[in-house]
């Protein structure tokens, strides 16, 4: 066929009712637009959203691995004197020197096939005054296990993580949705008491998994019994001054504010922090879904919290890849630290936060390490509030 005739036939033919000329031109234009958009978007897609800028890191502890002193996606952290206690996704509880990263002792949880712990708290021994214990939220086994510190026996084998844990001094919970039982435990917070006969008067336990709430166990005789619970699964706010209508969606961490006599709860999937009285009555919420996208206060999956004595709290944002300092009274953001990334000073999915001396230690979970930076609080207010019974009037 003559070339000119072929050209005429080609361009005049219809293709699904659209002229081929138009279809091909439109296709080329669409292809060009798509390519250019992709090229324009590609660099931007890799950029982290602006947060607080890199941390001014003073120390980096740990790296990926399963040897002592290494971590496999660490999930919870707390301070024990001048050391750190960390639990990770390999179900190891490790005590670490924060200055050097040296492994000081630890053990593997007794069971972990169904899942690993996601919460750890160091607090007063439930029965012995003047001694500390570690409260492990054994999430997928629906229980809180309390172990003695400071791991004297295990520190003799400080070259390795002990395969068997010490004998627990207390076990709370068991699977269920009724009072005193748990589905997936996330954290436990012991309430110190000034009475040496009762070093711990209450234990608060948070859980999720369709039974999202905070349960309270009180010291009765030689043990602890369920007293009350507050919260139901959902996204509602509840009524200030009451436990009624309070809802949680994965309450991940608990923190006791000794100066105010309050309990703070990181309501992670509702993107907020709740303030409650020690009897579980709502005081107010900080953040929330309506604050998302509205600076300066935007909490994206707040997981860890540490209360400072200057009336502020440090919150590690799992989704925001940063640490946010909030004013507890006013509910405003007074500082953001860190940004997303893998370099020193950057964070990836931080799960927890703890304060030792003048240093804040952030559990940089996605990078399998802990990063320390200088506490933003004034020197006189460095310590975490409410530790070891200091300043507590008790319930």
């Amino acid at each position: 066929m003559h070339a000119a005739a072929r050209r005429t036939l080609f361009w005049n033919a219809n293709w699904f009712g659209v002229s081929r000329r138009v279809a091909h031109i439109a296709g080329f234009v669409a292809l060009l637009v798509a390519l250019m958009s992709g090229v324009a978007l590609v660099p931007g897609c890799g950029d982290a959203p602006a947060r607080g800028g890199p941390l001014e890191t003073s120390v980096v502890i740990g790296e990926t691995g399963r040897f002592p002193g290494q971590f496999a996606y660490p999930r919870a952290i707390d301070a024990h004197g001048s050391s750190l206690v960390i639990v990770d996704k390999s179900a190891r509880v490790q005590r670490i020197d924060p200055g050097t990263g040296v492994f000081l002792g630890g053990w593997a949880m007794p069971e972990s096939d169904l899942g690993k712990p996601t919460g750890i708290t160091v607090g007063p021994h439930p029965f012995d005054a003047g001694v500390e214990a570690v409260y492990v939220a054994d999430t997928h086994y629906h229980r809180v296990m309390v172990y003695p510190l400071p791991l004297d026996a295990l520190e003799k084998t400080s070259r390795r993580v002990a395969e068997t844990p010490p004998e627990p001094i207390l076990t709370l919970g068991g699977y269920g949705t009724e009072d005193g039982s748990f589905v997936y435990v996330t954290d436990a917070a012991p309430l110190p008491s000034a009475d040496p006969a009762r070093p711990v008067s209450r234990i608060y336990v948070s859980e999720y998994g369709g039974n999202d709430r905070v349960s309270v166990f009180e010291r009765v005789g030689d043990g602890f019994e369920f007293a009350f619970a507050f919260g139901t699964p959902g996204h509602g706010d509840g009524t200030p001054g009451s436990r009624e209508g309070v809802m949680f969606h994965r309450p991940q961490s608990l923190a006791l504010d000794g100066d105010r006599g309050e309990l703070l709860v990181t309501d992670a999937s509702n993107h907020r922090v709740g303030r409650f009285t020690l009897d579980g009555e709502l005081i107010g919420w900080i953040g929330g879904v309506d604050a998302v996208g509205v600076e300066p206060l935007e909490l994206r999956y707040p997981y860890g919290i540490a209360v400072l004595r200057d009336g502020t709290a440090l919150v590690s944002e799992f989704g925001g890849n940063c640490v946010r300092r909030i004013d507890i009274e006013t509910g405003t953001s007074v500082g953001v630290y860190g940004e997303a990334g893998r370099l020193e000073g950057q964070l990836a999915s931080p799960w927890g936060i703890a304060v030792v001396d003048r240093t804040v230690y952030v559990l940089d979970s996605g990078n399998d390490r802990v990063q320390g930076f200088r506490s933003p609080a004034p020197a006189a207010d460095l310590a975490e509030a409410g530790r070891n019974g200091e300043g507590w009037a008790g319930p």
Partner: protein
Amino acid sequence: MGESRGGTARAAWADGLTAAGLVATALLVLGVPGVGIVRSLAMLGLGAALDAAGTVVGPLVVSALTAAGIGVLAAAIGVPIGWVIASAGRIRALAVVLLMPLVLPQTIAFAGWGVLRSPETMLGNAIVGAAQDGARWLPIVVSRGLAVLGLAFWAAPLAGVVQAVAFASTPRALIEQGRLSSPSVLRRWALLMRVHAGAIGLSAAVVGMLMLGSAVPLHLSNLPTHATVIWLELTETSLAERGRVWAAASPAVLLAGVLAVAMVASMSHAVRGSVARGDQVAGGLGVRASGGAVGLACAAWCCAFLVPVLLLAVTVRDWAVVFRFPRFHADAVWSSLATSGVVGVLVLLVGVACGRAFGSPRRFARVAAWLVFGALLATALTPGVLIGAAMNTAYGSLGGSSGGSFGGSLGSVSVILSMLARFGVLGAFAGLWMAWREDASLRADGALHVRDTVRAWWVFVLSRRLLLPVGAAIASACLTLHEIEASVMVRPPGPDNLARLMLDALHFARMDELAAVILLVAAAAAPIAAAGMWAVLASSRK
């Protein structure tokens, strides 16, 4: 004559550029991650590498058994689906819907049916109660069984497609004879299954090959397959020590390579023979699928997609969470859409280039096409977590960890390359099919000059078969939208994507958000996937 010579010269240049582009693509998807892996292995040493490789015999056996089980189940479920795809009449349009789950997340069936064993349900309480009474194995077995069954339902349409190619060649006389000789439906089906036993076995093998990879439900249920074990090792090993992990992962990589080479050799031989004989692809069954076959196919689709989505929807406590999800996670949504768009365009280009090269009269172009087809097939058969981890290793080696816009751009390129490695084979296959389906008259030597000019190829080949690579591009984009395995390994921290949101929702039981992600992906992908598949099917019937 002068115009023909000029056109031929231009066509030669076009073939040369196409071949160069295809070779560059093969080098990118194989070479970039390969360099990082080779460096890690070199640092490890041969003895240590062999030791590490020897430690995964157990997981390899588990992988083989699991893949075989899923393959057999998928093949069985896929029989009625294949019959509907191959049938005549308007019922064939149902094939578009039946194939849809293939481009949607693998985890839909696992997550949806898993709702029935949630802690607050009767079944969930019974399982945990039994575990606490001593049957600690029960929750684990239930979880793993659910993962296997969910994947079988997801892969059943793929098995159906493989079977449909054979079903379409069933002689009408055989079907009529079956109806006359036996009133029993089951006996007629048994006869047809015997006739097509090879195709059904092949479909099980194809699905089994895919399931040797790192399917997310197997990871979530902690089934100790080779890919799951390697996934865990990768997350718990620093970059400096990954040589040992790569050595342990080598059986999967080697198997993917061997399978790719074998399939390329087999397919090239088959295509050459078919072209030489002037074969025409079967146009489909001469009869309509029965109501029973259609019913079974629809039931399989419901189990794979509809019922799980409804179960997830029922679990939603607050629909406000679902509706505000796109706003709340706008950065993740846009990031995923942008990545999908770029990957779709790249796959389209691969498909068009392969279509040109496979149909070229020049040997070097055809060799380049087979080379990239083999490379993309090898990377597609390699577990996704290995692809992502390899790209991540290369990303780190090339200075991606330096941060800033360079690091960010490199991270995004790593993600896109990973997706191209995983799904680019769809474009290559579309190009092969496009070239294979050229009208026989155009292959005759007398018409060589018509095909040999770029314009003529565009008019007589590409414009008639463009919907094939377009359909492959759309399918690739849909799969990229929710691909988890490579994404979680390669994507740097920062803006989320839908895949990471979905994995977090699965891990942390954020059921409202999981429902939101799945509904969003299904709502976005379903009409696009349906349009794309319809286009592919319509084009392949011409």
